[in-house]
Every structure is written in structure tokens, then in C-alpha cells.
């Protein structure tokens, strides 16, 4: 299904074999004296995915699975160790000058914490106008003002709120301001790094609905990062599941919730409280995510996996397609996932 779709829509964002290592060694002198080698943390390991125009792609995973690192890699806040990020066929790495500036403008980000993402010393109007000035999107001060007021109106605030400071707003209102700021750059693609996880549940729904409305209005494409599967279900067309920096499953949203292909995805879904009262027993997620500095051999999930055998312990699984899902799992490839633990 995904393959036939992607022939018609060319991907807006194409991520190929993206890896990111961080040097976590001790200082040089300590290493020499203590005779220790350099140590690297693999935050993102050979991740590939693509997002079509107008689609919402969600990345889910536990803390430390590399979700936010991928977000920062895509918006070029940090640079990848290897791999490629193509946006509309171009890479931020290889472009210069005006092309770079346009590319940069088209990719914007909404941050997790609306209390840290707005400069407390700036008025809301100046905060929203910053991208307009930085990218030269308005001809006059009057234009800037009008755009800011329009954007405030679009995100459900009043135009006169531009005179206020961020501390005069609640968390949800601040996130609306952050969204207005991202929109003022006139982007095509928004990276949303857990945009609702710092908000109250009642406000979360408002912000999510706002984001969907804006997506329809402006034809935006979202990369939506979350650890909350119920939020993701509401938003995403496709979902990628991350485990210890690698993508273990990449499926269309409905498929993932109905027929999870990877044991880890099943484990996550089994932990969701059962609202339909279907009598399903909720299973606790067992074990913890291992250290990314010294990951397990073979499939990194094998210590927590009930289907693991010797192959899983020794060899890294490759990505294969099954029923429209891209899965990286030996058990799935070898047909060992016979019984469905769900239900």
C-alpha cells in the first residue's frame, strides 16, 4: 500500500541511513592516564524513512530512543555522522546562499516546552515577527504587524495579545504562540517535538485539533514526535517506532494499531489502558531501554523480547516488508510470531 502511494506522491522529506554518534569519552588527558578508549553513544542508527507531501509521520519510542535527536538532525540543529536528509530533493548540507535560506525557511519546528521556547524578555508580537524579519518576508512594519495579527487570530488568540509578554499566557496559549511563530516563516514542513507533552490533557486536544486544522489550511506536512500512542493515533498517517536509535517498525497508522508487526510495538500497544472495556488484560512494559553506549549484540531488542532466539542474539535483523509494514525483526521474517499476544 505504501509503495503504490509513494509512486504518485513524491516524498517531501527523504531520510536515508541517518546515523548520529555522540562522543561521550572522558577528556583526552584522563583517557591517556587511565588507558581508556574513546567511547561513542549511538543516538540514531541507520534510520530511513520518507514523508509524503501533506502527510503526518509520527515517530514514537521510549525516552532515549533517539526521537528528539532525529528532530534536531532534520532541522539541522545538529549534524549527522552519516546518512542523508533530502528535503524536496535538496540537502541542507550541500546548498548555500539563497537556496539554503529558502530551504531553512520551509522547515520549521515546534518545541516541547512552551515555557522555554519563547524568550521571556520579548513581547509576543516581536517573537512571532522574528522569522518574518530574519527571512525578509515583509516589506514594511505595517505588513509585519498585519501578518502577526492574522497569525494570532489563526491560532486562536487575539491580535492585541501581541503587546503582552509570554509569562502572561498559560502553557496552551504559549504553545499557540510558538505555532504562530513557526507559521510566520511560511513553512511547508513542521517538525513537532512532543508539542503537547508539557500540557494538560484537556489543552492537549485543543492544540492537536488546531494543528490538524492548520495542516488542512496550509497544506502542511508534519513530522510528529511523541511518546503518547493515543496522541499519535489521533494525528498520524504513518508511524515509525524507534528502539534504541533504530527504526524497528514503519507502518500505516491503522495497520500498526490493528496488526503490530514488531514484538516491541506489541509490547507498547499492550501497555495502553483498555478504554473499550473489551476485557483485554493490560500488560506492563517490562525491562528498560539498554545503554546506547554499549548496546546488546544482534537485535538490540532481544533481551526484552519473548520471541528471541540465537539468531536474534547474534545477527542484526534487516528491514523487510510484511503486509504493508516495514519491520526489522528476525521473528517476523522467519514467521515465528505465530500467536498474537493481544486479546
Amino acid at each position: 500500500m505504501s509503495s503504490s502511494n509513494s509512486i504518485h506522491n513524491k516524498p517531501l522529506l527523504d531520510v536515508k541511513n541517518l546515523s548520529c554518534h555522540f562522543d561521550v569519552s572522558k577528556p583526552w588527558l584522563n583517557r591517556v592516564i587511565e588507558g581508556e578508549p574513546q567511547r561513542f553513544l549511538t543516538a540514531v542508527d541507520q534510520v530511513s524513512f520518507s514523508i509524503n507531501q501533506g502527510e503526518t509521520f509520527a515517530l514514537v519510542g521510549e525516552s532515549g530512543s533517539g526521537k528528539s535527536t532525529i528532530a534536531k538532525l532534520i532541522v539541522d540543529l545538529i549534524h549527522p555522522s552519516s546518512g542523508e536528509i533530502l528535503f524536496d530533493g535538496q540537502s541542507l548540507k550541500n546548498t548555500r546562499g539563497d537556496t539554503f535560506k529558502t530551504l531553512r525557511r520551509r522547515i520549521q519546528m515546534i518545541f516541547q516546552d512552551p515555557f522555554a521556547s519563547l524568550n521571556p524578555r520579548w513581547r509576543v508580537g516581536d517573537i512571532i515577527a522574528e522569522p518574518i524579519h530574519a527571512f525578509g518576508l515583509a516589506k514594511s512594519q505595517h505588513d509585519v504587524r498585519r501578518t502577526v495579527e492574522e497569525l494570532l487570530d489563526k491560532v486562536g488568540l487575539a491580535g492585541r495579545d501581541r503587546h503582552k509578554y509570554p509569562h502572561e499566557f498559560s502553557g496552551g496559549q504559549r504553545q499557540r504562540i510558538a505555532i504562530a511563530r513557526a507559521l510566520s516563516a511560511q513553512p511547508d514542513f513542521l517538525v513537532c517535538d512532543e508539542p503537547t507533552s508539557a500540557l494538560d490533557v484537556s489543552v492537549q486536544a485543543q492544540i492537536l485539533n488546531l494543528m490538524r486544522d492548520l495542516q488542512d489550511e496550509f497544506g502542511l506536512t508534519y513530522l510528529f514526535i511523541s511518546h503518547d500512542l493515543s496522541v499519535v493515533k489521533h494525528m498520524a498517517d504513518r508511524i515509525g517506532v524507534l528502539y534504541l536509535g533504530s527504526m524497528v517498525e514503519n507502518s500505516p497508522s491503522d495497520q500498526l494499531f490493528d496488526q503490530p508487526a514488531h514484538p516491541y510495538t506489541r509490547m507498547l500497544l499492550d501497555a495502553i489502558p483498555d478504554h473499550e472495556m473489551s476485557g483485554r488484560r493490560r500488560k506492563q512494559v517490562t525491562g528498560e531501554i539498554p545503554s546506547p553506549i554499549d548496546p546488546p549484540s544482534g537485535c538490540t531488542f532481544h533481551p526484552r523480547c519473548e520471541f528471541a532466539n540465537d539468531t536474534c542474539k547474534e545477527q542484526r535483523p534487516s528491514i523487510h516488508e510484511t503486509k504493508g509494514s516495514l519491520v526489522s525483526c528476525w521473528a517476523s521474517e522467519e514467521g515465528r510470531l505465530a500467536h498474537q499476544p493481544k486479546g
Partner: protein
Amino acid sequence: MTNPTSLSTPPADASIWRRILDSDLFYDFSRRPIIILSALLTLVIILAAAFAPWIAPHTPFDPSSLNLMDGFTPPMEPNAFTGNVYWMGTDSQGRDIFSAILYGARISLLVGFAAVAFAAILGITLGLIAGYKGGLVDTIIMRIADVQLSFPAILVALLIFGITKSLIPNEMQEQAAIYVLILSIGLSDWVQYARTVRSSTLAEKNKEYVQAARLFGVSSFRILARHILPNVMGPVLVIGTIGLALAIILESTLSFLGVGVPATQPSLGTLIRVGNEFLFSGEWWITLFPGITLLILALSVNLLGDWLRDALNPRLR
């Protein structure tokens, strides 16, 4: 259409005075008599120094206005020869101590403010760069700061003063003395600012509003100047106030040791040193009054700085 999420209050257009009077800081200030007294004394000394030419009864350093017969007049007593009364007495050359203090405070405050401004600008700049750039730049700047901090400020100031003076030709020494003094006090005091600003910058630069600005392609210079600087200025204001008291004391110490400003432009420290020579011969007033003025000035400014530090620290509220 009504917006349920927008606040209904009008924008805060209250006047700046209203905002100051309504602030927590002013409320705290109004309940501390010692701080009010300190602020008043500081203000009086600053105003008296600023308007010295209009307030002072004499121009103490114009030799033509001095009468040697007035020398060593005790305070509040008529002079034995001329019958003139000076309410803080005169020194060996018949110079009115009160006028000398006014002009001396002028020099002391000028050097103090200029040295603090110089130290703050240097320290803030280096602190911002060290904190934002990190890595080797950070290491170099902060190790220099550490080395300098391991010496007493007065030693550093004396060293810089000595080196700079030796580089200036003899005939210019007297005019340049004040600038050399400002330079040496400023250079001995920048570390405080650099350290404070660096640590605040480290905290601020990882906040998401800075990352957002980077996404818009805002230059590092603009990010530092427009985003980070306004958010690290709070602590700088506090150490600046305390630093002013320290700079005035350091200037007086240097002048007392005879390496500060020349005797033709005496500061409070110079006056104290000159008066010190007469202390054991009974002319106590020549050194006591400049000393008291310095004490009041330094103490008031220091108390203000301490209060500001506590009042602006949310953890102590």
C-alpha cells in the same frame, strides 16, 4: 467571534513610574529603612560630587584661591590669624577639607563607575563568547580568568598599573593617570562578570528559544545580543553594584599607597593619605573627614548591592 483562549485584559500600557511603584522590588525597598538610608546617602554623595563646582565654598586646587595663613584650621573654629571658619577645617596649605572632599568624591566616583563599566563590558563580552562558543575558546578565556582570580585584585591592579605607566611617556603621565587607574581596576575585576555571564549563558543557550532563533538563521552575534544578553543581565546588575563599592575602595587603596591619581587631582584615597601624615601631630580632621566620606559611600553602595542581590533572588523571597 469571541476567542475563549485570549485574555480579556487590555495591554499593559501603565506608565513606567506606575510599574516601578507597583513592583515587588519597590515594595521590598520601601520596608527597609537601612536600605532607604543607604540609597539616600549614595544619592546625596553622587549629587554633591556631580555639582561640586557649585556647592563647594572654595576651589581647593586653584593655588590662587588658597591662603597659607589658613593652614591647619581645626573644624568649626575661627582661624587664629584670619578668623575664617571652615566647618571641616583646612589642611597644611589652607585648603578647605569640605571642598576637597567634594572634588575628591568626584574623582573617586568617576574612577569607580568607569572601572566598573569597563570591567562589566569586558567581562560580559568574554563571558558571552566563552559560554556560547564553548570548547577551546571557553577553556582559554576561563583559564586566564582562573589564573587572575588566584591573585589578590590589588596585586593585579598594581601590576597592570606599573606596566601601563612604564609604557606611557613621562610628560603624559599626569593626564593619563586616571585612565591608567580605570584600566588597571577594570582589568583586575572583569573575571567576576565573565564567570557569572558565562554560567548564565550556558544555561540560556540550550533553551529552546535560542534553538528556535538558530532555525530562523539568526546570526550568532544577534542571538547573543538580542536573546541571551537581556536574559543574563540580572546578576550582572547585582555584581556591578557591589563591584562599584569594591572599585571605589580599590581606587582609594591605590591612591593611599601613592600609585593612584596624582596629588594635583586628589581622590578620597589621596586625601586620606595626605592627612595621614598629620594624624600623629594632632591634625586629625585632615584624614578623618575624607575617611568617613569614603566609609559612608562604600558601605551604602555595598548595602544596596547586597540588598539588590537578595531581593532579586527568588529563592530568598
